[in-house]
């Protein structure tokens, strides 16, 4: 298994090093000047490609798969019926749900006939695949835009029901709720189903494409 011998053929400008190095230096100089000028712009977001994190945050996709939340409907009732489909679909098995009948006298708090007695998501295990969200028949569990997931103790990583609902309330207050999913047209029965669902879900999943960047340097 002799190694092939490779003949090196260089042109003159390649051979003398300097020409190509100088060309490269011109290129890097352009970038330098562009960013140097940009860095004097006001505001934390100066160089177009650089986000100065705590005070200057990039736009997060409206359908980002971040920290979970449990949705409430317009009357403030929990949508979750505790069926446990999410727990079943979860590849990381990080969800535990206990189903219970809605206690008497508390029908106003729950949208369904049953509810989740307890609902726990283990953030330490979650891989943020979004399968729970996709499986949920009621659209009750949603992955939100929260991406700052660092915690001090493992206990804080256990998202109980209160935390999940308060996540929802925060998101609602901030206006970062996920738009409803567009129905996925399925081959064959597409036409029929799309008509039925289309009337229900009009929202789009996509956010506006905003102009986030200045023009890159002219090369």
């Amino acid at each position, binding site marked *: 298994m002799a190694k092939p011998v490779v003949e090196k053929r260089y042109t003159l400008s390649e051979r003398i090093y300097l020409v190509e*190095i100088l060309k*490269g*230096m011109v*290129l*890097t*100089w352009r*970038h*330098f000047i562009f*960013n*140097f000028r940009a*860095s004097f712009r006001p505001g934390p977001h*100066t*160089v*177009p*490609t*650089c986000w*100065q994190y705590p005070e200057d945050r990039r736009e997060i996709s409206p359908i980002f798969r971040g920290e979970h939340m449990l949705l409430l409907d317009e009357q403030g009732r929990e949508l979750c019926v505790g069926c446990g489909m999410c727990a079943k679909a979860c590849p990381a098995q990080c969800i535990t749900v206990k189903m219970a009948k809605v206690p008497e006298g508390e029908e106003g708090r729950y949208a369904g006939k049953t509810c989740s007695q307890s609902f726990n998501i283990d953030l330490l295990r979650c891989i943020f695949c979004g399968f729970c969200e996709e499986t949920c028949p009621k659209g009750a569990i949603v992955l939100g835009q929260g991406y700052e997931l660092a915690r001090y103790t493992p206990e804080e990583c256990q998202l109980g029901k209160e935390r999940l609902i308060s996540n929802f309330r925060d998101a609602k207050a901030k206006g970062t709720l996920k738009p409803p999913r567009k129905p996925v047209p399925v081959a064959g029965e597409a036409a029929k189903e799309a008509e039925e669902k289309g009337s229900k879900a009009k929202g789009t999943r996509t956010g506006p494409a905003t102009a986030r960047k200045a023009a890159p340097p002219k090369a």
Partner: protein
Amino acid sequence: MNDWVIAIIKVVFIWVWTLLVAVVMTWVERRGAAMIQDRLGPNRAGPFGLFQPLADGIKLFTKEDIIPANANRILFILGPILFSLPAFSAYAVVPFGDKIVIAGKEIILQVSDVNVGFLYVVALGSMAVYGVIVGGWASNNKFSILGGLRSTAQLISYEVPWGLALLAAALVYGTFSLREISIAQQGTFLGFLPNWGIFRQPLGFLLFIVAAYAEANRVPFDLPEAESEIVAGYHTEYGSMRLGLYLFGEYVNLCTLSALMVTLYFGSWHLPYLNMEAFLGPISYGIASFLVFFLKVSFFLWLFVWVRWTVPRFRYDQVMGLGWKSLIPLALANLFVTALAIQLTV
């Protein structure tokens, strides 16, 4: 004023100045690299992140000083000192301005005008290699020893073309004193060019700058500390201020080399086509000459940064090949042609 006091003031001034430049260089390097790479770089500590070197220094000073278990303790401690001392000392013979007249006393802006300034710089440059090899060997680490060996081979190889390029320059000016060389660069050359060394020794300058990059272990010759190959080379095992001394010594080296380049090839404190001495007062002339000199030095310091973030790194054998097969023959040819030209014209 006593001569002693003046000498001490000059020493302290150049010491502080070099340190300051080296400190600011770490900041310039990081910000410059960031700007070249479409980033921002350290900008949190102080205005424009200017206090970042200070924070780094505090960090380095307060970190735990670790000496590896099987390291040679004495040499391990000696390494960084051997490396940084010559770097600081070399600046002593480089003139950083013309002269300043204070209270009727003429003070030359140079710590000491040694008549063999050249040799002194070259000798000290060779000393630095001991710091590298001693540090690399004492660490008792395979990556360190590889880095130390690479560095030694590289420094010794590139000292030859470096010295030959310097020799050609010495032939042109007929002196070893850096101050006399600086003074000789006033006026014009061939009637229209500034009388700078680069126009008399273009090839010599090219050789000098390439060799200087190799002497300073800078990209594309940074293989003694090639991060992706041998972790950090000879200072892999170093931490705290010992590492700081290595890094610092490197930047001081850059200062010295840049100053040397300016002194030899870029007219030191002279502005092209302009005799500042003719229309500036004695004190303002001294300050202006220093500023002009410093401006030129800053350009070369920036060039170090600029090149570093543009080109890839050589391989060990390619560095040797370039040094021995290309630079040394070129340097010899340059020396020969220079000597011939001088012989014919004088």
